[in-house]
């Protein structure tokens, strides 16, 4: 799949392509990528569910807001490797603690942005909704939540980056994924493996972050006057 075409006529590019092909095959990068995206998707999905639920909860009971956000902030300062390691006794090794740590990290940005978004909807819109006769539940679901969506999407975008980072670390505790290939590279001191896998992980992360950014911006544009 890498040869053919005129680019491979140039010696250096030809070498690079050969090396990429070698690493891709020996490190099973297709499989690793699937494992990686599988953990990423589950972790992100659960983070979004929990993050938004907690955000709505602390919006509705503001007394909880400070303790919950401060607690999540503390989790955020714990180094990711340490958090991962601490979860080993609970979840065993592998994908379990990796996904759990990703979720723990990713809840904060989503919860914080959900909370901020819901609380900071301009008074004007809430007032008109109340004046039209929306009950508190309808104000939350039909006015506050949709208007908070761009900000919530911003939180999810940060969570995408966090989740990507932690899932990559999962390779260190036998969770598979692209981190496993990176660790192989370091242990075998195989420069090609490190470079190719590193570049591929970086590219994947940038693409996912960019995709989330596009969605965030679309939402912002759709809501016109409000950002």
């Amino acid at each position, binding site marked *: 799949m890498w040869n053919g075409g005129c680019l491979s006529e140039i010696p250096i590019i030809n070498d690079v392509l050969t090396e990429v092909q070698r690493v891709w095959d020996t490190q099973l990068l297709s499989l690793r990528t699937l494992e990686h995206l599988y953990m990423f998707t589950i972790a992100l999905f659960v983070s979004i569910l929990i993050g938004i639920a907690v955000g709505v909860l602390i919006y509705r009971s503001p007394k909880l807001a400070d303790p919950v956000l401060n607690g999540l902030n503390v989790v955020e300062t714990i180094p990711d490797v340490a958090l991962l390691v601490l979860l080993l006794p609970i979840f065993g090794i592998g994908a379990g603690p990796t996904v759990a740590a990703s979720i723990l990290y990713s809840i904060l940005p989503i919860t914080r942005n959900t909370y901020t978004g819901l609380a900071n909807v301009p008074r004007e*819109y809430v*007032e008109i909704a109340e*004046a*039209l*006769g*929306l009950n508190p539940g309808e104000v939350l679901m039909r006015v506050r939540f949709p*208007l908070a969506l761009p900000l919530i999407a911003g939180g999810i975008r940060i969570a995408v980056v966090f989740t990507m980072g932690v899932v990559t670390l999962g390779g260190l505790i036998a969770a598979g994924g692209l981190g496993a290939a990176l660790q192989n590279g370091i242990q075998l001191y195989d420069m090609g493996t490190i470079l190719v896998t590193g570049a591929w992980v970086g590219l994947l992360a940038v693409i996912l972050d960019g995709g989330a950014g596009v969605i965030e911006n679309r939402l912002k544009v*759709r809501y*016109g006057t*409000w950002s």
Partner: protein
Amino acid sequence: MKFKKLFNRIESIKLESVTKSYGDRFAVRDLDLEVRGGELMILIGRSGSGKTTTLRMINRLIEPDSGRVSINGANVEDFDPVRLRRSIGYVIQNIGLLPHLNVSGNIGLILKLEGWDQAKIRERVSELLNFVSLPPKSFMDRYPHQLSGGQQQRIGLARALAMDPPLLLMDEPFGALDPLLRTQLQDEFCKIKKELGKTIVFVTHDINEAFKLGDRVAIMDNASLVQVGTPEELIFEPSNELVSEIVDSKRKYRHMEALKVRDMMQSLDSGYFLEGNMPAEIALRKMVDAGLEVAFVFKESGTVGKIPLNEVLKAGNTGKSLNDISKSLLVFPADASLFEALTQLKEEGESMALVLGGEMPVGLLFSDRVLQGLV
């Protein structure tokens, strides 16, 4: 529909010794005001005078500290606020169209919450858009940020009318528009006001707007009601210095002194004049056919008599002639001072007079139309 409207028509809205304070500052203090069913009541005053607070106590956006607000005799506190507000239309200055909903989403929001089906909502939305002179096809699917200020204001009105509420509360609805557009929308609103046939409470700080639209005007200052009355009453009998300053009666008096009756009269055609000996029942048919509310007769004394339609109705088949039921009528020469004419009308408690050019009747002077002409 999930619920029945709390009221289908408004008999009256009463605020009785209503007080609302924030900290040690009164927003509204011991206010008594009655809005009659079908009228457009203006609340006017400087910012901070309590007019918006008063308005918002009607649909319970603000709860009074003491006193009672009632609609058709029922205390609003006894209504569920959500049901109450769905029975009352509400329009505000900055419109507050929800930016995440398109035009039909905004207008149909409450209809949707009320469980109307999609087709019925669309139908109602088009009807309302037509009513506010926006072609439904090109506006239904637009978002608020794609609309001009005037268009947004129309949508705001349409949204308030969605549930066909018998009462509309409007808080400086034209305040944010540029003067030209404001005048245009005021003119349109004047026209549709009659079609709507609703009771309207309208907050403004613009006295011209108040006189143009209002049946009665309540002047507020410093959390209290200063005076309430028709525009003429406020101009001719301001209760204090502040009122005359607000209605600017000094300037208008002076303005009026320079004018003659002929400048402000409605011209008259001979169709208004009937034979004095005509029997009432024949006159009734003639007047109804011609759409006249009032007719005139020349009396033998050389004066002119006024025949209001309701008097003709009352006379019915009694066989009375118009001469028998005619009322006396004030008469002014066309070059009389407008100011003096109006003052005299006021003193006599009359709203109209006949204008003579020489010996011939040439026009009619209506006190309320003069005021509208002036503002």
